[in-house]
């Protein structure tokens, strides 16, 4: 189950001091026992959407993050060159998927709870709200589960993005469609009215137009939408060959289900966020043929070897290690890219602390700005220009499709061609 069970984070009010010694070594009574084995506890603050519309993805993201944290802490923490061991502690609250609450709670994290570093909530909207607080209080924040480009164009200086930005989310799908069927010309975009999806479809739309596609429908829906009837009627009326869009998990899966119920004929159907989630399989028939962009897939092969080939530094565990550790930790729950995103946010921070050889925020920030490495999750590199400081420029997407195979319904990587595990099912059944 994907419940919010295992990640029950540290209680709210116990984050008394960030640099207090912890009792990991038996050095509390006698100073001279092991004077050099100093331990620093770093407080990491973030919120979780334990309730509200972002619940599914958010919980997975936090699961990933907690897995990283437990792994580091179990290994005795990060060791700095002066022998200091850095361990981590999480302080978190439920943001109810609500921007107001996010600002309130991040303020609390930054001040009352004295968090040293922040991780973003899930979703671009919530993250934009929390980024403002991070900047106001000068806290370094790694964002994950938040792809919108806009946030990074507001003059932020302390916020770093782990995800491929929204503007590059669906462009690959257009390329895929072009490679599948050059005769297709009519596209419909139906998307959620949120920061993230709007950024995505606007970039994809101009990309498609530049490739000569005709956009027959371009319309947004409100995040709470449960009835896609009006859109489906419009889609039927405008007769596109392909539908692109969606938003987050809930609306996306509902859209797919209702499209299927109404027996609408399209050849190609790409949705944001929802398809890569393992739970998407619950849709059964309605899932077959649906394509989705993914930040990370277990099948995608980023390895120390590929790092070497690309001339990049490798850091952290491999995908296989991640998947098996995750499944062991969370009762066999299969990790989604949100889980990987949560993990990698921690990993980035860990690497930055190592590179900085310090937990001083300014040094960590400098290390982040200089970062350029390959992990199981892919390439990580941040924009350092003033216009888009912190924007992810290293990482890119893969595309999956649900296919009915011998072993039942399964996700296959279909794009880019280099990493594909199966041919695209085209046109959709």
């Amino acid at each position, binding site marked *: 189950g994907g419940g919010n069970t295992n990640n029950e984070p540290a209680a709210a009010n116990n984050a008394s001091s960030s640099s207090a010694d912890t009792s990991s070594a038996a050095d509390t009574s006698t100073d001279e026992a092991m004077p050099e084995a100093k331990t620093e506890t770093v407080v990491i603050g973030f919120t979780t959407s334990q309730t509200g519309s972002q619940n599914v993805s958010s919980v997975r993201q936090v699961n990933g993050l907690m897995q990283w944290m437990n792994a580091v802490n179990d290994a005795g923490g990060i060791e700095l060159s002066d022998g200091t061991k850095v361990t981590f502690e999480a302080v978190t609250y439920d943001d109810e998927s609500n921007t107001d609450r996010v600002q309130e709670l991040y303020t609390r994290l930054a001040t009352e709870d004295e968090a040293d570093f922040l991780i973003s909530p899930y979703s671009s909207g919530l993250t934009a709200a929390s980024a403002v607080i991070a900047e106001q209080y000068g806290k370094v924040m790694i964002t994950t589960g938040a792809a919108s480009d806009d946030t990074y164009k507001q003059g932020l200086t302390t916020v770093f993005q782990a995800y491929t930005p929204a503007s590059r989310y669906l462009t690959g799908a257009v390329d895929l469609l072009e490679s599948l069927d050059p005769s297709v010309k009519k596209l419909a975009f139906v998307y959620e009215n949120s920061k993230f999806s709007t950024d995505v479809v606007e970039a994809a739309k101009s990309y498609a137009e530049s490739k000569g596609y005709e956009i027959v429908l371009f319309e947004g829906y409100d995040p709470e939408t449960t009835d896609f009837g009006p859109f489906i*009627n419009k889609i039927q009326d405008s007769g596109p060959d392909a539908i692109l869009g969606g938003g987050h998990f809930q609306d996306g899966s509902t859209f797919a289900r209702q499209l299927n119920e109404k027996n609408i004929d399209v050849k190609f159907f790409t949705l944001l966020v929802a398809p890569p989630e393992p739970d998407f399989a619950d849709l059964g028939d309605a899932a077959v043929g649906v394509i989705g962009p993914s930040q990370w897939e277990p099948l995608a092969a980023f390895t120390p070897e590929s790092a070497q080939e690309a001339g990049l530094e490798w850091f952290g565990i491999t995908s296989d290690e991640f998947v098996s550790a995750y499944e062991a930790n969370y009762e066999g729950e299969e990790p989604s890219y949100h889980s990987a995103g949560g993990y990698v946010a921690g990993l980035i921070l860990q690497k930055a602390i190592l590179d900085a050889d310090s937990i001083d925020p300014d040094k960590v920030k400098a290390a982040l700005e200089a970062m350029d490495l390959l992990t199981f999750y892919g390439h990580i590199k941040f924009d350092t220009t003033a216009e888009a400081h912190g924007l992810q420029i290293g990482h890119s997407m893969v595309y999956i499709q649900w296919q009915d195979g011998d072993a039942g319904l399964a996700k296959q990587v279909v794009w880019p061609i280099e990493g594909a595990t199966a041919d695209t099912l085209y046109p959709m059944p």
Partner: protein
Amino acid sequence: MDFLLASVIDGLLLGFVYGIAAMGLTLIWGVMNVINLAHGPIIALGMFSLYFIFSLLGLNPYLALILVAVLGLLLGILIYFVAVHRVIDAPHLSTLLATFSVNMIIIGLGTAAFTASPRNVEFSLGSFTVGSITLLGTRLVAAVLALAVTGGLYLFLYRTRPGRYIRAVANNRDAAELMGVPSAQILALSFGLGTMLAAISGGLIATFFPFTILAGGVYELKSFVIGVLGGLGNPVGALFGGLILGVLEGIIPTFMPTTWVPVLEFGLFVLILLVRPQGLFGARK
């Protein structure tokens, strides 16, 4: 043309269910002058009850609906005696806040118990294709049930003694009491009927849309609009109001972006309040 027809039919079928939800709200409002702000969460509870009865007991959803209705009635009576009875004679604000606190309690406990992840009732009656229009079985059945419920409620209110008592208590509680009408019981019954309708509409909605504990809020707002459209305390008006709203929701998107629907909906709502507060069909009290 097909497009317009399909949209109207979709809207109409949905409108029946909106009508039932609104009927529950307007009954409570008309009878006891209480705007029930717990209406939305009760609709959501209706959805969850149906979901659990269906998925745990494996009952047919329409059989489950009977159980849902009974639960709704009992819940309403409970809510009435716990939260509303003491303030029924107090100024407006007190009942608004009392029902709002019930709203908070249900949502608070509901999120703790059910989380906010969406649920789906995996049930389908298939679909029928007529020409280019596809009709879903679940929606057709819901519309028929809605009609039956409306008729039943109408007969109850205007043709039975308890129905007359309900209207009398609505009008002057002290006087009804003096005439030998047990007003507290009658009020509790009315509240129960109102929540029963909410629960039924929730159950029906659950057979076609995914939902969370927060999902009732939208239908609560729609119920306000419909209540005002149809006239307070008038069950038939509520049904018509629901149909009108449903059709509007179907038609508006054919002319402009769907996100304009609420603008027009609420604009219309305020307009009707201004020019015809007794509703299009007149409040029948």
